[in-house]
């Protein structure tokens, strides 16, 4: 084996062993994503949609009593979970403000009294927090549905016009798919940017790299060796996350595993380039930490806003920033079963970023 390769591969292997012996790396990059997956996955599996409500009957009609019994019977209204320990509107409003309830269903005085035609009449009042209207509006919609059915049953009259709802399943993306994609991205980012940006300036400050400088060891060997090291660590970490998601939570990877592995490797190489850039520019650990955090905020910030709130030119710009093709590619492979051909746009953007970032890193790198 020639001297260049021997030095490169020995450096890579030595650095991998070194990082795998670091408790911080093991905890932050291996254990933490697994813990987040276990916690998030457990919540997702156990999640069911229930609305916590209180039923307050201020009416004394037989209809009102029957209606109250219907609402409070367990399982009668599927998503409703009725608390029976609240007796007054004031108490119920206080619980609502504390977030202990999603809604209050009040049958006001006179509800269910017979009108001139002999039918029970009146309005059900649904209280909800204005700051989170979704639950209350959902419940109001359910109440309206129940009352519509009741009206038909009482009067025998079916309204001629109506609305039929049909939910679509085109995205077919579950909460677990979202969790998995985000955790993989977090893992790649934490290894390639945070760990590397922390370790490299520290080695420079200590004089370790200067020690290498008096040997025939070249800058390109250090850059390549570092890229290989952190890509390898990233791949170990994401393999653990993927295995846990598949084996414990039955995550369905709809695409090809080999394609996913190659894509994740390229993603790791790209993000390691950013870590190298921060490490190359920073002259000490404090600067490196600030650079890594700032860079991550900027990159992640582009993903945290829904694209439709951004103006067109910014939407287009974010599509070309580094994290967008990474997260798009992971979701495309894992959720939609995308093929290599489908990923050409993402791969092209990532390839360009890899070329640019590594060129700048090599140019800016200093041994000490």
């Amino acid at each position, binding site marked *: 084996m*020639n*001297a*260049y390769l*021997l*030095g490169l*591969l*020995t*450096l890579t292997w*030595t*650095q991998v*062993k*070194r990082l795998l*012996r*670091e408790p911080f790396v093991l905890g932050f990059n291996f254990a933490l994503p697994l813990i987040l997956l276990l916690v998030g996955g457990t919540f997702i599996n156990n999640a069911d949609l229930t609305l916590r409500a209180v039923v307050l009957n201020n009416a004394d009609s037989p209809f009102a009593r029957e209606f109250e019994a219907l609402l409070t019977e367990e399982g009668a209204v599927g998503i409703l979970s009725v608390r029976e320990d609240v007796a007054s509107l004031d108490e119920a409003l206080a619980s609502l403000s504390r977030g202990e309830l999603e809604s209050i269903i009040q049958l006001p005085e006179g509800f269910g009294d017979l009108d001139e035609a002999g039918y029970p009449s009146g309005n059900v009042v649904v209280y909800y927090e204005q700051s989170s209207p979704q639950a209350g509006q959902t419940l109001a919609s359910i109440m309206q549905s129940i009352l519509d059915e009741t009206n038909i049953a009482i009067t025998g009259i079916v309204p001629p016009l109506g609305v039929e709802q049909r939910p679509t399943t085109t995205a077919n993306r579950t909460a677990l798919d979202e969790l998995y994609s985000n955790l993989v991205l977090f893992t790649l980012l934490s290894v390639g940017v945070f760990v590397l940006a922390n370790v490299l300036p520290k*080695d420079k400050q*200590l*004089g*370790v790299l*200067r*020690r*290498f*400088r*008096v*040997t*025939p*060891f070249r800058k390109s060997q250090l850059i390549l060796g570092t890229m290989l090291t952190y890509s390898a660590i990233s791949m170990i970490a994401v393999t653990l996350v993927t295995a846990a998601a598949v084996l414990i939570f039955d995550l369905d990877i709809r695409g090809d595993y080999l394609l996913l592995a190659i894509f994740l490797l390229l993603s790791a190489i790209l993000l390691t380039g950013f870590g190298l850039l921060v490490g190359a520019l920073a002259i000490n650990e404090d600067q490196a930490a600030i650079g890594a955090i700032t860079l991550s905020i900027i990159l992640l910030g582009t993903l945290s806003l829904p694209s439709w709130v951004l103006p067109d030119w910014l939407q287009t710009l974010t599509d070309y920033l580094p994290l967008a093709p990474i997260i798009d590619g992971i979701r495309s492979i894992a959720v939609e079963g995308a093929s290599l051909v489908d990923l050409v746009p993402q791969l092209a953007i990532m390839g360009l970023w890899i070329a640019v970032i590594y060129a700048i890193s090599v140019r800016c790198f200093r041994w000490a």
Partner: protein
Amino acid sequence: MPDNILAVEGLTKRYGDKTVVKGISFTVREGEVFGILGPNGAGKTTTLEMIETLRPIDAGSVVLDSIDITRHPQRVRQIIGVQMQATAFYTRVNLKEQLHLLASFYGRRVNAEKLLADVQLSDKAASYPETLSGGQKQRLSIAAALVNDPRVLFLDEPSTGLDPQARRHLWELVRSIQARGITVILTTHYMEEAETLCDRVAVMDAGGIIALDTPQKLVEDLLAAGFKKQVDVRQADLEDVFIHLTGKALRE
């Protein structure tokens, strides 16, 4: 008479308006232990670092083993070993792994156990450098500088921070390295070290060489100039007391 393995001519280093190494010239014979002696700030380390290709040369020339270091720095790095003033190694990489790593940079595989045995660190082969004492780190640093079996070994203040026992053991190590035919160039501000180890000494001050000869000749020249030292004849000094009380064996 051995050939010169190092020829330095008009070596200069400037930082802005300040010239820290002022056109110095000297030669080093193959196989000798050559010392550069001087106070802090004299320019010793800067001189060494220019020869080691760590710092660019502003003026002058350095030819090491017939290689112009400015034109062929990579060829020079292949044949020199360097022990730096501040030793630094990767954390969480044990001593054997450190030596294998450094040897790989020269395209070599090394017998790490033997190297560590030469510097009396065999029992620390599986330890990390961050757990070593100061003296042990210096010995590791010297072992690391020998992985490529260099023609010239550079030692920058090798016994700084060492206790008397460790210093004396280090001197024995340097002598054993010289016995293998390796030329040693060291900097020091310890007079006794220069006197004990060095075949020839260059005395540096304020960026220039103010004297260069064997330690014995330098002392003779001083005496010939009329210098008289107040002599307090003692059979032992405080360092001898320390070593006698604590034992000569290396205890690290």
